[in-house]
């Protein structure tokens, strides 16, 4: 039995909102990155669901790219955090304000 697309989309929206809330409300950089990952996963779910519904492979192919992207993002992001932590001594996003106008 296949879940209807509406349910898949509802899950995706729920996940996306949670991820967005995590990315926006948390101040720890790792949690922000985590939130972004969850948002990307929500996108992947929506894409795969749509792909199944319309029997088109583009959505699934896109999801594969997204996986590669998130893996790269996580590795680069974590490396950046290590560096940032070394320089500023904190992972609190409020501690980085050198871009202030």
């Amino acid at each position, binding site marked *: 039995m296949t879940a209807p697309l509406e349910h898949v989309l509802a899950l995706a929206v729920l996940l996306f909102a949670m991820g*967005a809330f995590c*990315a*926006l*409300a*948390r*101040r720890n*950089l790792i949690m*922000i990155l985590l939130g972004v990952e969850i948002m990307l996963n929500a996108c992947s779910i929506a894409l795969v669901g749509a792909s199944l519904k319309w029997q088109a492979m583009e959505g699934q192919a896109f999801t594969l790219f997204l996986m590669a992207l998130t893996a790269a993002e996580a590795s680069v992001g974590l490396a950046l955090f290590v560096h940032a932590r070394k320089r500023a001594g904190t992972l609190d*996003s*409020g501690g*980085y*304000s*050198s*871009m*202030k*106008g």
Partner: protein
Amino acid sequence: MKTLAFLILAAPLLGGLTLMVAGRNLPRRTCEAVACLAIWASFAAALSAWLSFPGGREVITLAPWFSAGPVTASLSVLVDPLALIMAVMVTFVSGIIHVHSVWYMRGEEGYVRFFCYMNLFVFSMLTIVLADNLLFLFLGWEGVGFCSFALIGHWYRESFRGLAGQKAFILTRIGDVAFVAAMALLVTNMGTLSISVIDERVITLSANGALVLGLLFLFAATGKSAQLPLLVWLPDAMAGPTPVSALIHAATMVTAGVYLLMRLFPLIAISPDAMLAVACVGGLTAFWGCLAALSQRDIKRILAWSTISQVGYMLLALGAGDVTGSMFHLLCHAFFKSLLFLAAGCVIQVLHEEQDVLHMGGFLRKARPEIFWLLLIGALDLASIPPTAGFFSKGRVLESVLAQPGQVYHALFLLAAAGAVITSFYTFRLVLLAFSGEPAKPFTHHPAVLPTGMARVLWPLAALALVAGAINLPPWVGGGWLERALASVPGVVPAHHVAHGSTAELVDLAAGLLGFGLAWLLYAPSRRPAPAALIAREDGPLSVFRGGLGLDALYRAVFARPYQALATVIWKGVDWGVVDGAAMGSGRVFAWASERVRPLSNGKLTLYLTMLVAGLAVLAAVLAGGK
């Protein structure tokens, strides 16, 4: 003939170009030699062209130039006795001025520039003299304007000299506007700019067309020849080196206007009103110039005003329909005025740049008798004392005017005769003040030593100034050679219409002697008051004419001041206020707005992300709504 015509033009051009390109890398002597040789080569070509000229007129196309619509312009020259005699005179006088300049400019720095422009000046003048196509002539016409600007402002480090150059350039350009307008009219009405063709087709012109063209060319000539109403640049042009003054006044620029009218004489002669206008401008300027010369203290300014006055006589003769008389006076004037200027240049250098005639005095005659004699010969010419050339040429002018019927011409004759008296008066005033009696300011230096050649090279000019009258003796003596030489030039009428015999010459003689007598009464060393009283007298009522009868001041008040005021309004009001204000204002608006926006970027990452998501949400909502 083609080769010779080409050589006349090419030699000074080549000299000028050589100096322009290589002058800085050549030794000084070479530069001077190149400049002088160029002119004398041109003189040799002009002389042999004249001697070998069979007569009549010949149009020679040196090179094609361009053809656009109805206008065809080629670099063509029109060779006739008028042009050849003029070319010989121009190159001869310029040659002597060049040689004199070598000594005059001996201590100067910018000699390459000086000689380069002098050569180009002569080239431009020869273009005017020879050109058949008016557009080609106009090249020379603008060339003399530019070279005069460069040479009058030669010592540009003193700003008033540079300004005098600019003034000459701008005022003569006002006249040039009329020249261009006349050319446009000629193209539309006659379809040609060739002087020889114009002469043939001139009868097809309507009376009004001829009058308009005549007046436009007259206005162009008043600019170059410093006649009323455009004469105010010439006295200021004295700021240039003295040989430049001699060149401008005697051989090139100032005579160019008169020469242009002679060249286009058939065009002007078919409109009696245009002729009358030429005569009136000439007569009034002649009188105006000698009045202004009356009370000048600067030796060069006296000569400058006298040039304006004498060129007025040339125009007067032309307006009376006498090309020969005009040319005769032009030639004689070229000799004696260049002589006067170059001698005055010697005087100025001997006295260490003293130009005020009241500060000269009798010791100059004892210290430098040669200069005295040279200047005296020039003065006798200017004052028309027989048997100098000036006597015959001015007599011829008076004769022509007297021969014309009509009350206007008779009034002009009286004006010219009165002008002759005044001319003689101020000339002898100059001689008596500069060479006799006590100077008004004791001269403390020793007179400077001049190179001997500097004055000696002037003797040929002096000789010509004495005997050149022989080229055109009045009919009652036996008629003239110039008369016959110019007989083939269109529009030239033989002088046998003159029925007054020797009346004009008698008036001329009387005017010269009367002027001398008056000058002797006022300025003879024994009759002159003490120096202090003399200065008081000269700066008193007599000095009313010193400003050129207020014409310069009038132009300043009527044209220069309002223009300046308008320029200030546009500069400060429009440019600073509106244009700069708008630019600065918009800049300030953005600066103000950016101040308001700046606090938004507080460096907080979460806020940026929130904004990003909010923006995306809005975008998504818009896109979804658009579906």
